[in-house]
């Protein structure tokens, strides 16, 4: 329920209050189009060097290759940790790096 204030802020023991949050400045971004298959596609691995992501990615590679033998991966080693002190610079570099490496999709990990 919203109301316009008459400026007084309080009347008859009642308070007219505003909300405390700031305006959102990030517009909604449509997600990239999903792939039709993983065969022939290049998937980038992004890792924050936490929570045994190296083992997880290794296991995922095996399983995904079982189903999609022609899938290619760009290892997390190519990019370095996404949670290090240079995090902002690294993330800003990704669009160009993905272009240069022919990346079609990315898996970013690990969180808990």
């Amino acid at each position, binding site marked *: *329920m*919203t*109301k*316009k*204030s008459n*400026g*007084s*802020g*309080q009347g008859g*023991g*009642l*308070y*007219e*209050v*505003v*909300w*405390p*949050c*700031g*305006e*959102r*400045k*990030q*517009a*909604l*971004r*449509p*997600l990239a*189009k*999903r*792939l*039709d*298959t*993983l065969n022939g596609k290049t*998937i980038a691995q992004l890792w924050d*060097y*936490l*929570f*045994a992501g190296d*083992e*997880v990615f*290794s*296991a*995922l590679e*095996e*399983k*995904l290759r079982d*189903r999609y033998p022609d899938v290619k991966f760009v290892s997390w080693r190519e990019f370095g940790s996404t*949670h*290090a*002190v240079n995090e*902002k610079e690294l993330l800003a570099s990704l669009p160009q790096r993905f272009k240069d490496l022919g990346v079609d*999709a990315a*898996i970013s990990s*690990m*969180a*808990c």
Partner: protein
Amino acid sequence: MSQAAATSVGLGMPNLPVAIIPGHPGVQSVEELRTNSRNVTAQQVIENLLAQPAEQKLAPEPSAREIVFRGTFEEVNAHFYEREWSDGLPVVPPTLEKIEEFLSFTDRAPEESLGILLPENRAATVWGVAVNGVMAGCRPQYMPILVALVEAMADPIYGVEHSGNTPGSDTLIVLNGPIIKDLDFNYTQGVLRDGFMPNTSVGRFWRLALRNLAGFRLHKNDKATFGNTFRVVLAENEEALAKIGWPPNSVDMGHAAGDNTVTISRCTGGGVIVSVTGSTPQEMMPYIADAVAKQTGWEIVFTVGSLSIGTLRPVLVLSPILAQTIARAGWSKDDVKRYLYEHARTPAWRVETLTDRWTDFPIGSLKQQVNLGRLPKAFHESDDPNRLVPIVLEADDFMVLVSGDPLRTNAYTFAHNGYLGFPAARKIALPKDWSERIRAMRK
């Protein structure tokens, strides 16, 4: 999962798909983890790569001055609590009248943005600062400090986006300058305890600002395992510092002595160093250095690598009598920092066990880090695992403050969250008519 869902909204992608690992990788063997990844996670990854998620829209939000609710004190608080706008304590209802009182203590325009804050990518405006200052129970005259705090919060070097991280660290706010006395901040006995309105309410404001201006809420974007609540503001004892010729923290942070400043730094935890005994630094400092070293445990990963190299900034707070006793021997604050660098050390085996066995922040070895040129030689002067190594890269990495009970021989040390809350300082801008208004208030 809920953090991923909440964070992706702030990034403009509320429908960003995630895949899960059952349980927690930290307590699974490698075989269990790989089996879970293959049997559970892989299928979700495939679906996320191939199936287009449905578009989502966000609910419209009010504008800044729009009245969103009208009710009694209790009704306003219930309304705010249900919407996670309050911290669970009663808030002062933010009416337009109260907000204008706060705005009268800054020359900045209400709609001026002090920065865009993650994780929700919201603009932190002067208006928003005033709203949350009202809610926190601050007095209007604290407004210049609140504005400076949010400016510091928005400084990229601080890393506000890490404020909901797993360790649940909380911010230490250090206040310097004549404003301490202008506004009757406590800077002596019990300086870190609630009880003085300025210290307490400004500390509370900080967490409300993180909640409402940045977007950190428990079980959503704030994933502290345990967490800490707000710290009351620590005001330095500048009289004591002046008597012994030590600079205030404002100078250490690059400002001029006599400037009003706030410094923020995220600290993982702290401990009191009780009953420091001795009449010379040589007698007193070994105990203090030992306590400072022991307060840093896993946080060493911010010095030696895996998370960062050299971003650890441990804090030592000396009571005035301890500082005076040390200074009486001719020691400067820099001498204290140098002593801490030389003596607040930890065994190499402890560092390597912490990083490579007890936690999941491996570095290989200190020897390897030195050989790769990542760490200085001080971290590998021999292969003796019992050799003592520094906890920081250089003496200036320590923050030394003077506050607390002037006549108690206690000190306090805080461990630090490294680059995930790196110290940031801001000068406090006062309105043109500050001096007159403070004088009028004191009459």
